[in-house]
Structure formats: C-alpha cells, structure tokens
C-alpha cells in the first residue's frame, strides 16, 4: 500500500515525461550491459585462441572485428529506440 502510493506520488511529481526519460535511460544502460557482455566474450575467446596459435592471428582478429561489428549493429538499433523515446518529450 505504501509502495503503490509512492508510484502515484511519483507520477504526480514527474509525470509521464519523467517516466519516459527514466525508461529510456535505464533501457540504454541495459543495452550496454548486453552488448558489452557479448563483445567481451568474443574478445576474450579471440585473445585466448591467438595465444594458443599465433600464426592464425590475422584471420582470428578479422573474425573478431566482424562479429563485434555485427553485435554492435543491433546494439545501436536498441539505442536508437532509446533516443526516439527520449525525443518524444514535449
């Protein structure tokens, strides 16, 4: 009861605009968590495999760059959604 009163009070103070900004900002942070985890995983495996077999370093590095760019592709798509949500203010 106390908690839903807090939300009602918050809505009165911030209004819809503040909630949408909050949603967009938290969304951007979540996007970064997912993307950083994915690309960090790729980078870690790449470093490990280059350490294991340095002669294949060039090809492994190119695969890493391509995979990182692909992951960044849809990361930025989610970021664009956050920016669109922010732009809806006012």
């Amino acid at each position, binding site marked *: 009861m106390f908690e839903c009163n807090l939300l009602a009070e918050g809505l009165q103070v911030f209004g819809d605009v503040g909630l949408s900004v909050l949603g967009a900002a938290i969304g951007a942070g979540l996007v970064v968590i997912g993307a950083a985890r994915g690309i960090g995983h790729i980078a870690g495996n790449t470093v490990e495999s280059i350490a294991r077999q340095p002669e294949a370093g060039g090809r492994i590095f190119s695969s890493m*760059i*391509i995979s990182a*760019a*692909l992951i*960044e*592709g*849809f990361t*930025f*798509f989610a*970021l*664009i959604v956050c920016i669109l949500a922010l732009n809806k203010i006012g």
Partner: protein
Amino acid sequence: MITKPVILAAENPLSHVVQHPLFTIHVGSLELVFSNHMLMALIAGVLMMLIFPLLVRQRTIVPRGARNLVEALCEFLRDKVIRPQLGENTDRFVKYLWTIFFFILFCNLLGMIPLAGILYFLTGNSHLGGTATCNIYITGALAVTAFIMIHLSGIRQQGLWNYIKNFTPPAPWPLVPILFVLELIGAFVKPFALAIRLFANMLAGHTVLGALIGLALVPRSYAIAGVTVMGAAALSMLELFVAFLQAYIFTFLTTLFLAAAVHPEH
C-alpha cells in the same frame, strides 16, 4: 563570456548530427528542401567522380602515391573479401561493391573534417558540413540499392521460380510455410539492419564527440577544456577506425547476401 554561437558544441550534441536545411526549391506546390547531408553526399559523389578517373589515367605499371592506396584497398576487397564469397561471379559485382565501399568511406571521412566550423568563419552559415551517413534516408537508400541488387541478381541468375524455392529450406513439410515467412521477413530485415548499423554507428560517434566537446565548456577552466579536447582527439581516432570498419562491414555483408542469392549452397 560566450557571445557567438558555439560552433563545435552547439545548443545540444544532437544539433550537428541532424539535417539542417540549406535552401528550398519550390516546384509547383512541392517544397524540396536541400539539406546539408544531401550536400555532403553530393560532394562525396563528385569527389569520387573526379579522383578515380584521374588515378586510373596513370600509365605506369607500378602504382605510386594515391593510386597505390586506392589500388591496395580495391585489391584487398576484391581478393580477400569478394572473391572468396562470389567465386566466378566476382567481375559482375565488383564494380558495384567497390562503389558502395568508397561512397560510404568518402561520406564517413568527409564527416570527420570540420567543414562546418571552418566555413562558419567564411560564410555565416554554421551547417555547411556534416556526415551524409548520419542520415537514415541516405543509408536507407544504400540498403535499398543493395536489396534491389541482391534480389534482381538472384532472379536473373536462377530464374524466378528457383529463386523463390531458395526461400524454402529443406525441412519437414508442416514447418515449411513458417520458415518461408521467416526467410521472407529476413530478406527485408537484412538490408534494414545494414542501413541501421551504418547510420547508428556514425550517429553515435558524432553525438558522443559533440557531447564530449560540449563538456569542455561547462567548467570555466582552460585546463579541463584542454583535457577534454585531447579526449575528443582520441575519440576521433576511434571514429576514423569506425569509418573504415563500417564501410568494410557494409560491403562484406552485401557480398555475403549476394553470394547467398546468386549461388545458394544447399
């Protein structure tokens, strides 16, 4: 006391990545607005049309200078990226793929030159520069050309019925309609993702750069402003790398889709 409008860090960081109208042409009841992104795309195209014929005209066998750079890029693309995917169809598509690579590269690199700031002192207009690929419509147009190229080439190569049969993967027959719809959606989503990837990478880079330089003005101190400018210079190095990388990724993915359309491997 800052009285002139601040050039590199304008009112908000997004204001120098969005389009600004330069002049408007009235055709009957239509209003055609010419914006700075269109101007930069035009400059990129004109530069390509001027530079490449001049470089091709050199009659020496051994390339030197600018021709060496362009030939190295073209050869890397053709032999390491396009030929492993397309095989014997390389010569059909290499001109198109080279064109989009260099167009995207020129647009991205022209965006890194602060033309707007320099020309602000000559003319009063502070928006005569910008990145053409920061515009979803320009990257969308590139993706539309990729879409047309992929599907038209696939249809010309295999015939319409065979090409549509490519969209039905070998699977048990109850699943085939669902998989067909999924492949059809994928055919539209893949060029859309190409456009969004290029657009969002350029947009994010320039927005962060604008926000960082804008941070230099908040504390009224030259020391912090100097550090911020050095950080912006380092970020610009990353932006230059991203310019090349995004052009390469666009070309590489278009090559992959072309190869899948022209000779599918199942």
